[in-house]
């Protein structure tokens, strides 16, 4: 694009004035006349049969208007919450996930009844009075035991606990491994994590009796998906239902699909004829908002003595939880990306989706790519250690070379562009790598344990081309935009993506301002309301810019084309002679006699248009990208481990990333900061823990689930290289998940490097002091 006044500019966000003054509009801020509050009664057991539910006392409690159980909903909610057929098409079992349990509960926190009352206090009081008679059943908690013959099943009567068991072959692995001089194996646990948006989930449903319309305000990343699935289950048309999502207080993936409470509040509103609000507590959130990760990996890497990587075998056991999450099987992309940014002769995977009695897992920031990066980056460091090579050199030797792009990986996914060495060299420069090893040796002699960890990462994002997503998913994950130039030249753009902190109202307006040559202030971005946006797929998978943003650019181009035809008519010139230059239309050679877009727009709504041209200046676009986009980078973490206490202190965190061209560098940096923090959090602090025997959740509050505060987080030293994507006209990739994809590997590699003098080979996450202390004690004895 020729015009670059706004694209690439560091612009303060237009979202912020309302948010910093308390005038945001989050779901709990909504109040409607006659609105009742819904409290959800949940199973305290991971697995139990429901003998009976007695609602007598609850129904009589003060302020209570209704208590509903599965029996009440049966006539109003048809069928279960879907699991996408994508990613792993040949699933063996997909247990029906009805939004509320009737005879059997399969995870702690599964809804069994709802109470509607005048306010949240009264609803919660009455919920305590619902008496459920449970008959506890054995809980399936351990992934490996769950697959043993004779294991109890997560659902009564199920043949086993296998949701899928699929081989993903990427080349002739036996032939590749035959070339290896060394083979190293590693087991890695990816602990369950709670995505933990600061705004918990919540919704307000309003069924209007006799009008038979439903409006659902909800905190979601995917308003159109929610409408599609909830309207279908309620047996109403999409035209009868509107989903509205205003300010959303974070998502990180966990709000990217419909949840039981969206069905239950909608059906409750229909049953009682009044608006119904439900707001999740933090404990409910930790218990029942879908978790991320929850995987166990066994891997073997083969390398030649000179450090050349040849083969990688990966087995992934994926804790699906009690049901198959809507996008849960997307996490199997960890295998498809298992080779990272390196050339392997073959990468071979097997993924087993395991049903357990925990809340389902689904994509959480990175979803499969952090796991892939963590595994391959640990293995590459182990190869370096085994061969006595510098981990930097092993990486350098095996990187996909810049001239090799577009590069089909072992599974046929085509990496679009990359310069992996360049980001690594820049990061090493920032660190001062040469001096580091010397200092590390000196400090070791003093009993101080410094470690350095690299993470050279690549990811797949910009989900996604219909060619890759539609054959299996049934829907092509394209993205929409509708653009309207108003008669006086201001512009409204509706997008099918949905902001939950990414700043789309700002960055999308930057694109439009440049593409149409109109002042930034005259562009308004609308999102989150199915009533005013074209069908769209929402925001996840770092797709909003590379798919949604390009859709907006194309709508701009369509509008400019029509405006040029109209300008030619006004100028009485040939269309070929009309120039469009930064918002001005003129005839070649006469730039002084120009009309701005606003003037053309005004004319477009009037009379005297060219033969056959309709009034108005607007366009709608569904953009189907030709490929995914492939950001990459190099992160370096430097830690000191206190051998007495096992505590890890991050001394430096350097990140050099490449997401192609950038719309707003301030926002890119912010996304990286937050992403890195979540990766560090997984590496050092966070873990959803359950008691192995009872299946009880042990981390049900922020007292136990350790989301880091400012006191635990380091400064981040960032830089960027720019390798434009050839996949789209703006040359952009994605950056929302990059930090998280890279960080856990950098941190754990640095911890392992620090502990190498003890002969410690691997440290599992979270690398909390007690875990490291025990490893040191074992190593010393």
């Amino acid at each position, binding site marked *: 694009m020729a015009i670059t006044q706004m694209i690439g500019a560091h612009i303060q966000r237009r979202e912020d004035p309302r948010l910093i003054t308390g*005038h945001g509009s989050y779901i*709990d801020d909504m109040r409607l006349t006659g609105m009742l509050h819904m409290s959800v009664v949940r199973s305290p057991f991971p697995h139990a049969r429901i003998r009976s539910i007695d609602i007598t006392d609850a129904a009589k409690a003060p302020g209570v208007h209704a208590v509903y159980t599965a029996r009440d909903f049966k006539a109003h909610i048809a069928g279960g919450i879907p699991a996408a057929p994508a990613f792993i098409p040949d699933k063996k079992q997909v247990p029906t996930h009805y939004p509320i349990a009737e005879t059997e509960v399969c995870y702690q926190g599964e809804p069994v009844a709802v109470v509607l009352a005048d306010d949240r206090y009264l609803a919660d009081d009455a919920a305590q009075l619902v008496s459920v008679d449970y008959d506890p059943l054995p809980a399936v908690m351990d992934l490996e035991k769950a697959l043993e013959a004779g294991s109890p099943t997560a659902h009564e009567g199920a043949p086993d606990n296998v949701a899928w068991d699929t081989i993903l072959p990427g080349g002739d692995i036996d032939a590749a491994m035959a070339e290896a001089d060394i083979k190293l194996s590693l087991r890695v646990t990816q602990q369950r994590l709670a995505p933990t948006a*600061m705004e918990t989930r919540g919704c307000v449903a309003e069924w209007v009796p006799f009008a038979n319309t439903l409006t659902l305000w909800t905190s979601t990343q995917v308003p159109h998906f929610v409408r599609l699935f909830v309207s279908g289950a309620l047996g109403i048309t999409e035209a009868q239902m509107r989903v509205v999502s205003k300010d959303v207080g*974070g998502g990180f993936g966990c709000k990217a699909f419909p949840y039981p409470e969206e069905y239950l509040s909608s059906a409750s509103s229909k049953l009682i004829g009044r608006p119904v609000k439900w707001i999740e507590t933090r404990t409910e959130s930790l218990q029942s908002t879908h978790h991320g990760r929850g995987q166990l990996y066994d891997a073997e890497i083969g390398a030649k003595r000179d450090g050349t990587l040849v083969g990688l075998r990966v087995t992934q056991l994926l804790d699906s939880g009690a049901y198959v999450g809507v996008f849960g099987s997307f996490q199997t992309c960890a295998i498809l990306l298992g080779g990272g940014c390196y050339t392997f002769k073959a990468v071979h995977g097997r993924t087993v989706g395991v049903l357990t009695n925990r809340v389902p897992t689904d994509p959480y920031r990175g979803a499969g790519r952090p796991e892939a990066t963590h595994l391959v980056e640990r293995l590459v460091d182990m190869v370096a250690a085994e061969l006595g090579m510098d981990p930097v050199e092993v990486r350098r030797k095996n990187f996909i070379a810049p001239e090799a792009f577009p590069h089909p990986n072992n599974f046929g996914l085509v990496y679009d562009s990359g310069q992996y060495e360049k980001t690594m060299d820049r990061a090493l420069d920032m660190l001062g790598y040469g001096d580091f090893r010397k200092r590390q040796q000196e400090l070791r002699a003093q009993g101080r344990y410094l470690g350095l960890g690299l993470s050279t990462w690549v990811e797949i994002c910009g989900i996604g081309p219909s060619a890759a997503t539609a054959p299996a998913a049934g829907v092509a994950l394209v993205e929409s935009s509708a653009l309207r130039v108003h008669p006086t030249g201001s512009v409204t753009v509706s997008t099918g993506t949905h902001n939950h902190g*990414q700043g789309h109202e700002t960055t999308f307006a930057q694109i439009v301002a440049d593409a149409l040559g109109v002042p930034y202030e005259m562009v308004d971005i609308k999102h989150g309301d199915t009533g005013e946006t074209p069908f769209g797929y929402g925001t996840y998978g770092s797709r909003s810019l590379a798919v949604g943003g390009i859709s907006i650019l194309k709508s701009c181009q369509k509008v400019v084309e029509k405006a040029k035809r109209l300008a030619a008519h006004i100028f009485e010139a040939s269309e070929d002679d009309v120039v469009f230059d930064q918002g001005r239309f003129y005839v070649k050679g006469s730039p002084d006699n120009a009309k701005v877009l606003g003037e053309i727009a005004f004319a477009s709504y009037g009379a005297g248009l060219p033969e056959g041209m309709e009034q108005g200046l607007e366009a709608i676009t569904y953009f189907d990208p030709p490929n995914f986009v492939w950001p990459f980078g190099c992160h370096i973490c430097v830690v000191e481990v206190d051998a007495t206490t096992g505590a890890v202190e991050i001394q430096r965190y350097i990140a050099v990333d490449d997401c192609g061209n950038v719309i707003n560098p301030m926002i890119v940096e912010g996304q990286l900061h*937050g992403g890195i923090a*979540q990766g560090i959090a997984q590496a050092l602090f966070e873990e959803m823990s359950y008691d192995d025997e009872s299946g009880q959740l042990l981390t049900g509050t*922020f*007292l136990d689930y350790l989301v880091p505060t400012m006191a635990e987080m380091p400064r981040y030293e960032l830089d960027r290289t720019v390798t434009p994507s050839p996949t789209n006209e703006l040359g952009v990739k994605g950056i929302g998940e990059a930090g998280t994809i890279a960080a856990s590997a950098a941190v754990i590699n640095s911890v392992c490097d620090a502990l190498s003098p003890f002969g410690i080979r691997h440290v599992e996450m979270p690398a909390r002091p007690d875990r490291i202390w025990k490893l040191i004690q074992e190593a010393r004895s």
Partner: protein
Amino acid sequence: MRHSIAVTVNGVRREDAVEPRLLLVHYLREVAGLTGTHVGCDTSQCGACTVIVDGRTVKSCSVFAVQADGRAVTTIEGLADGGNLHPVQEAFWNQHGLQCGYCTPGFIMAAAYLLGQNPSPSDDDIRKGLEGNICRCTGYENILKAVKQAGERMAAGRATAPAAQPAAVGS
């Protein structure tokens, strides 16, 4: 049984009859209609509900409305001076100290209080001073920068035009 309380919220005195168990945060949001103060957890770790009561920060999810009887409460809505943002608000905007914005009101209130106590905090002072608030989006880097910038601007403002300073919070 309801109790009559009189609370001055953002400079306006109001009288209400409330249940003794009503939390201050719900009083502010649902009785006073000020929804800028948010709830992010049930156990007072996250600080999204931070407001200022009689010059000191409190987590309004762990205070009953009746405990605010006779006191003055400042919420995020009361921080800007008419159309002029408080320097801490301005700095959060300048430094991209927020993304989803949900934790932001609590952070801004806590930071305003911190700067009232310690006008030129070190990085470490800020990290310790704000460890009662959780942000999931920013990784904290830009919040740190924002608080430093706000501190510097407030100090510069005091040096040049003391009369133009916004109402002190927590001093």
